[in-house]
């Protein structure tokens, strides 16, 4: 008799895959936001300016 290994996906794996999909989507959307959202651009410019004035991006906590 032929035997086959049958894989049954658990709900845990289904949820994990959904979360990973959500994470990848977030990363794609964040890249678009980085280019297009004026608030993100402004925050980056503000940070870069501060780093330039300090001469380094490093601070002591």
């Amino acid at each position, binding site marked *: 008799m032929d035997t086959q290994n049958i*894989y049954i*996906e*658990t*709900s*845990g*794996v289904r*949820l*994990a*895959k959904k*979360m*990973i999909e*959500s*994470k990848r989507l*977030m*990363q794609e*959307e*964040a*890249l678009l*936001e*980085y280019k297009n*959202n004026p*608030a*993100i651009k*402004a*925050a*980056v410019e*503000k*940070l*870069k300016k*501060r*780093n330039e004035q*300090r001469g*380094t*991006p*490093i*601070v*002591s*906590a």
Partner: protein
Amino acid sequence: MNKEERQSFRPDGLQKYDFEFAGGIFNSYVFQTNNGIIYEILFKPSGYIFQEKVTFKEDTFEFSILVTDNPTNKKPPLDKLIPNTIASIFADFFRKKERIVVYICETSDFRAMARNRKFNQWFDWYKGTSFIKIDMQMGQDDKGETYFTSMIIRADNPNIGEVVIEFRNLIEANRK
């Protein structure tokens, strides 16, 4: 300074990169490294993970680290200041004590276990006594890849009892 002397997620006395809260739909924080690489730390609202009825859905976020601008065109090098910086960003994000952060390890390159180990080391180093992490192994897929996820909450989160029960329910439900 040893681990016990350090306050939770506050790498006091250590160097880190300056950062800025940028907001947006993912509650984004940005920082720039010595190499000019821009990183974003993202916290995406993710109440869908839990049942409809839970009261803390709006305080649940998925966490991700993203390189958004890399002028070097090379793979970003290991950078000892990044863990300190992320810890400081966590401290800032968790100023609202009701917040819950969920982290799932990326599996696309079969390095989920290594990422999980690294994340655990990072958390253990910075957590102090004010944060709790609950880990969940969510099973293995047909290719043998194991899925890991963790939830981080403040120990003084007023919903901690409900959160822990719901996360346990999630673990139990997802074993089937």
